């Protein structure tokens, strides 16, 4: 990225997690909460079915930043608020816009959307190019 000035948009990242993703992420992360694995259980607590792990979606936001900047060493801080539940087998899109630059520290505001709704909004990433 040659130009990281306020208003610059980073390349968007779109991912459609397949139906086995929540099982693979549970194994990788150690979070086996049944709301992520068991449709029947998820419906019993008022969800439409099993939902993605919030920290998985946050990892997509992180990946959008590190891919744009060219490696994991560039991501110094990431803060997100989770809004609503994301589901498997529907596309998630991460959009990221530079909001500030001070010296060698770039601040990016990012959003994750699915089915037209924000599932993470006002995510703030601090990057060192």
């Amino acid at each position, binding site marked *: 990225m040659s130009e990281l000035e306020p208003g610059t948009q980073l390349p968007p990242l779109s*991912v459609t997690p397949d139906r086995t*993703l929540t099982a*693979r*992420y549970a*194994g*990788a*992360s*150690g*979070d086996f909460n049944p709301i992520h694995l068991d449709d029947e259980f998820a419906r019993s*607590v008022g969800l439409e079915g099993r939902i993605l792990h*919030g*920290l*998985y979606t*946050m*990892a*997509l936001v*992180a*990946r959008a930043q*590190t*891919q744009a900047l060219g*490696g*994991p*060493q560039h*991501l*110094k*801080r*990431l*803060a*997100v*608020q*989770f809004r609503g539940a994301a589901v498997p087998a529907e596309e998630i899109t991460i959009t990221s816009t530079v909001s500030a630059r001070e010296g060698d520290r770039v601040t990016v505001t990012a959003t994750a959307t699915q089915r037209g709704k924000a599932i993470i909004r006002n995510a703030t990433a601090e990057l060192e190019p």
Partner: protein
Amino acid sequence: MGADTGAVGRAFAAHNYAVGREKIREYARAVGETDPLHLDLDAARGAGFDDLVAPPMFAVVYCAAAIEEAMFDPQIGIDFAMLVHGGQEFEWGPLVLAGDEIATQVRLAEVSERLGMVFYVFESESVNQRGEVVCRGRWTQIVRPRA
């Protein structure tokens, strides 16, 4: 009923995590990482690292035991059926590599109540075998009221 703030400030037992090469690969594949630094040992070494590099969000893996100990503590008394993850913040120091030994300690930083929901904020600090802070985390958990 007001939120019980009696445990605020409490620190929980530190947990150690030995970072393994295959665990980095497993995590990286699950979140769709394609950067060879996380997957290909020759590429990582070629880039000047001693071993595979963990993605930044691998912090959730090395923090898991310490954060679970805090959240499941009976004095905190979280109602897991009503729990939602409200927010998450990580700040990273030096990169974590396969072979590192990471010690994580968690403390309960805040308990507050709004509109019948109880907000628990946990803070984690993860230190590698050289004493460098590799990650600080702030974990906001929300317990909704039972209908």
